[in-house]
């Protein structure tokens, strides 16, 4: 056990890397997902088709496959991205598909009357979306987006499989270096519990703050 406390720094570094991955990948997913989501509810046929195709492809393949393709595939197509960056990119691309579906259902959850009122005021499609629908949709999406964030945190552990020393990777390394399986894995599990519990609480707070009372 004392080994754990002597070298706890290694695991803390891993925890930090996990947080960095999630904090960078989540906004990327949000961006990709929102753009795709708008394409998906919009009137332009080809964009709807492309966004739908993207979502189906990404949601139906395992994240690890996406990560492996991005991490080991990008160099072959002439794009040299550092390992950390490509894991962020892979996570962003993958969870973008989930954000897109969340956006779509969030938009569907906005009452029809709101949209009709916005259109009656003469707003264009973009105006309706930007000024009336999306602000409300994002509020109702607080809960699902929160769980997507938690999922990004957990999924960033797959970075360990492609060589990023985040929390899981450092627990594994710790175990290889010091042969302390129980303490190292329990420490890592506690790290993840802390992240998910905090994120869950935070999501709840945000959800209550932004909830629309009707």
């Amino acid at each position, binding site marked *: 056990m004392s080994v754990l406390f002597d070298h706890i720094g290694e695991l803390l570094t891993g925890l930090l890397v996990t947080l960095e991955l999630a904090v960078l990948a989540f906004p990327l997913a949000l961006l990709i997902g929102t753009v795709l989501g708008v394409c998906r509810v919009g009137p332009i046929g080809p964009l709807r088709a492309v966004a739908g195709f993207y979502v189906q492809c990404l949601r139906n393949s395992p994240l690890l496959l996406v990560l492996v393709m991005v991490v080991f595939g990008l160099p072959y197509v002439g794009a040299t991205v550092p390992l950390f960056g490509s894991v962020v990119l892979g996570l962003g691309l993958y969870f973008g598909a989930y954000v897109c579906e969340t956006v779509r259902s969030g938009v569907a959850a906005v009452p029809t009357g709101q949209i009709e009122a916005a259109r009656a005021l003469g707003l264009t499609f973009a105006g309706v979306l930007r000024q009336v629908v999306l602000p409300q949709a994002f509020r109702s999406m607080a809960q699902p987006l929160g769980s997507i964030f938690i999922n990004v945190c957990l999924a960033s552990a797959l970075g360990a*499989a492609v060589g990023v020393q985040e929390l899981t990777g450092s627990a594994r390394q710790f175990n290889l270096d010091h042969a302390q399986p129980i303490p190292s894995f329990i420490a890592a599990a506690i790290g993840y519990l802390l992240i998910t519990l905090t994120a869950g609480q935070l999501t709840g707070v945000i959800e209550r703050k932004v909830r629309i009372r009707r």
Partner: protein
Amino acid sequence: MKTTVLFDELGPRGKARLRIATIIAIVVVLGALVGIVLQLQHVGQLSGRLWSPLASWPNIRYLLDGLGMTLRIGLSCAAMSLVFGTVFGLGRLSPRRWLSLPAAAAIELFRAIPLILLVYFFLIGLPAFGWNLPPFWVLSIPIVLHAGSVFAEIVRAGVHSLDRGQFDAAAAIGLRRGQALRLVVLPQVFRALRPALVTQVIRTLKESSLGYVVSYPELLRNGQVLGEYNANFIQAYALTAAFYIVLNFGLSRIAELLDRPPRKRRRARVARVDSPAPAPLESVS
């Protein structure tokens, strides 16, 4: 479709604008595709040497073997996780604290830590104590624990969404709690959860890709080996991805079909019971 609420039936000007936007979108999408193809060509990824191995039968069969293993582990894990999830989900609902607390703790723990951490624990943690499990179990026990915990929450939500009157009625005709669960609650919950059962299979199929980590010869792992052997990573992974996507897309279509309200099929046999709203099925794994 509901999406049409967002925009009106277009007038002539709007139609013209939409047509222009559509043409621009097609051009942009095609341009992006051409750009990708040109870039692939530029770096030589389109050469026949890299793609031709995928057309040879031994290579395809190798991937199909992987697909078979993926199906084997995915389906068996799905089955086991259904049992695990039902037992733990109901356990969590039990009025007995000594049953509900451990069940809740297990569910929350396995949902809150990443699957791959569990896999590493079974892969390199347990052997330190002389427990050397075969790769199949190293991979499938974590998947069952993880996917089962997720399913336990789905079961719980399903039971919660059941009309309170069902329990009362069961109690009123003198059923004990266990009987009420078995005879009244579970049949209804499971009927409502049929789409979730298929989603569960998709989840375990996707999670089985962690065979890549434990060197279990499932689809992703075989794709990797194929890519290494023929030195055509992108091509091998592209085919692997196509396998996964076709398989899971087909399954998700089945889930959607099951999700439709049962219309005429059952009317003859069962008086219409308000089926509980299906639990949130969104799976992220």
